[in-house]
């Protein structure tokens, strides 16, 4: 098998067995990047030289003390550009941070490097992770490797494209409302958003603090799980990172017979592409043939999730974005007649339209006159939604839906922001409730679609075990 098509577990095994060198692995990916990056635009910062140097060092380590090789020796990763890799530009795909170089390492990068992963570059995303296509990136759109007329999805579009195009073995992204799962669905790869709090966010740019979670995009479920095991864990530098013991054990052989799966009733009426609907029906048929029970289940709050999400997320992100003032770091405008002007022009020039829109909405709904009607109300309904999901999980093991109701759209297609927001209907409830979910690819007559499975909080292991079973079935 070609190196670039190998899975993380295979590369790790072959590398440890001495069948291939790290320099060879990195060279194979760089060759592929050289061949296809021009039409895809996955990277903001390609770290070719750093990766080659790290590879040579790892080969020396294998020579001298093979028993000390880490769990990710042999594995090459791309990293979403909102995660700090010390000494390497971290732009968040914004003009605001075009030249920003973090002076420290994110906790997860420390963990990955300690396990001998090689980082091949920082990948594109929607600006500050706000969007679902990478079209809001200051560095241009990342095109879908499966059809380069189409978007790769977002916000972790560079991550998904880099895995699908075989530029790396797997990628680390972040998911605030579907930003790992939706691009994974669009590019035909696996994307996992673990339970909120599983993974440290120290060194990850904050968008919405009670939603953001690091996730993994990989070629299959076993690879994603293998990398998540390295990432998970409490961190004294992030008070919300409580770890997740459920991710640590090996994946189990989980029989699909006897499983109880809920499909939100909304699936029947929600506007979606016919092939997506058909794809879900095929999966349901396969699951029931295996002896699983699949029921349509009513939810009272699911169709309100996108509105709740945009109120709370924009309410959280507007104050987070106030740190970008043109003073201590980031873009500074030449308009400097007053400090007030310096702030307002630096932000006007540094941020793109979608970021400005979200800050403006967040500022509006968090103002003294409106906070109770919007923000507090949405938090109350968030509680109802979480309770509703928990009640469904009393009777069902998992919730099944399409990841996205649409296939990746054409890069030139004009869509209103609200149309794009509503496309997140099946992914945002997961972040609102803090549960775990995975998108696994399913072939259709045209592009692959994403099948989303949602699991209970801190039962990621169960979710991934079933997902692996379903992956084999599809």
């Amino acid at each position, binding site marked *: 098998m070609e190196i670039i098509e190998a899975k993380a577990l295979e590369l790790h095994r072959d590398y440890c067995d001495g069948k291939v060198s790290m320099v060879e692995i990195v060279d194979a990916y760089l060759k592929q990047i050289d061949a296809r990056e021009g039409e895809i635009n996955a990277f903001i910062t390609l770290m070719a030289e750093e990766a080659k140097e790290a590879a040579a060092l790892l080969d020396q380590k294998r020579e001298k003390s093979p028993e000390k090789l880490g769990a990710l020796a042999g594995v090459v990763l791309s990293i979403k550009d909102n995660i700090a890799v010390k000494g390497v530009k971290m732009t968040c795909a914004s003009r605001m941070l075009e030249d920003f170089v973090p002076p420290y390492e994110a906790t997860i990068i420390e963990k990955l490097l300690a396990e001998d992963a090689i980082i091949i570059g920082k990948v594109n995303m929607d600006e500050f992770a706000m969007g679902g296509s990478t079209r809001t990136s200051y560095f241009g759109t990342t095109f879908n490797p499966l059809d380069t007329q189409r978007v790769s999805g977002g916000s972790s579009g560079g991550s998904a494209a880099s895995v699908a195009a075989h530029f790396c073995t797997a990628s680390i992204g972040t998911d605030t409302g579907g930003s790992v799962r939706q691009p994974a669905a669009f590019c035909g790869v696996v994307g996992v958003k673990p339970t909120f709090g599983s993974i440290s966010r120290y060194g990850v740019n904050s968008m919405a603090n009670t939603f953001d979670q690091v996730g993994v995009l990989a070629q299959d479920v076993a690879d994603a799980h293998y990398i998540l095991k390295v990432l998970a864990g409490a961190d004294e530098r992030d008070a919300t990172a409580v770890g997740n013991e459920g991710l640590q054990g090996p994946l189990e052989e989980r029989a699909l017979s006897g499983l109880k799966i809920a499909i939100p009733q909304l699936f029947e009426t929600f506007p979606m592409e016919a092939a997506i609907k058909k794809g879900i029906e095929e999966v349901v048929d396969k699951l029931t043939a295996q002896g699983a029970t699949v029921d349509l289940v009513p939810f009272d709050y699911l169709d309100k999730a*996108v509105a709740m999400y945009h109120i709370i997320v924009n309410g959280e992100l507007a104050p987070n974005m106030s740190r970008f003032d043109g003073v201590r770091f980031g873009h500074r405008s030449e308009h400097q007649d*007053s400090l007030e002007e310096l702030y307002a022009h630096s932000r006007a020039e540094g941020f793109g339209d979608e970021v400005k829109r979200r800050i403006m909405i967040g500022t509006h709904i968090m103002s003294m006159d409106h906070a109770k009607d919007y923000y507090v109300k949405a938090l109350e309904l968030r*509680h109802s939604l979480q309770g509703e999901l928990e009640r469904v999980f009393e009777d069902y093991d998992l919730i099944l839906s399409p990841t996205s109701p649409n296939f990746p759209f054409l890069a030139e297609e004009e869509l*209103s922001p609200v149309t794009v927001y509503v496309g997140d209907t099946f992914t945002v409830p997961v972040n609102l409730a*803090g549960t775990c979910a995975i998108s696994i690819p399913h072939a259709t007559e045209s592009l692959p679609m994403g099948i989303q499975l949602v699991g209970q909080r801190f039962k990621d292991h169960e979710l991934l075990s079933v997902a692996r079973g379903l992956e084999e079935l599809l």
Partner: protein
Amino acid sequence: MKIEQIKHIANIAKIHFEEEELEKFAGYFNETMDLLDSLQEVSSQEEALLHVNELDNHFHEDIPVEGLSQEEATANAPTEKYGYIEIIRFVD
């Protein structure tokens, strides 16, 4: 939403907009607020949920540790002077 109201929000959010940009924003604003207003019809029976997980406080001894050096702390500032972040003069 009227242009004057949007200007007021922009002023609080500290983002400068040109007049023609504001026109475009008004349309977006109204479309998005319609979406967000759809929650007003739903009655809520629960208390506000501030954190999805139960979080305990973890305390540690307050021991000083080495932070960023002055050079590292100012490395990303647009301009630096005498080891400090330089900004414009804003008092007479």
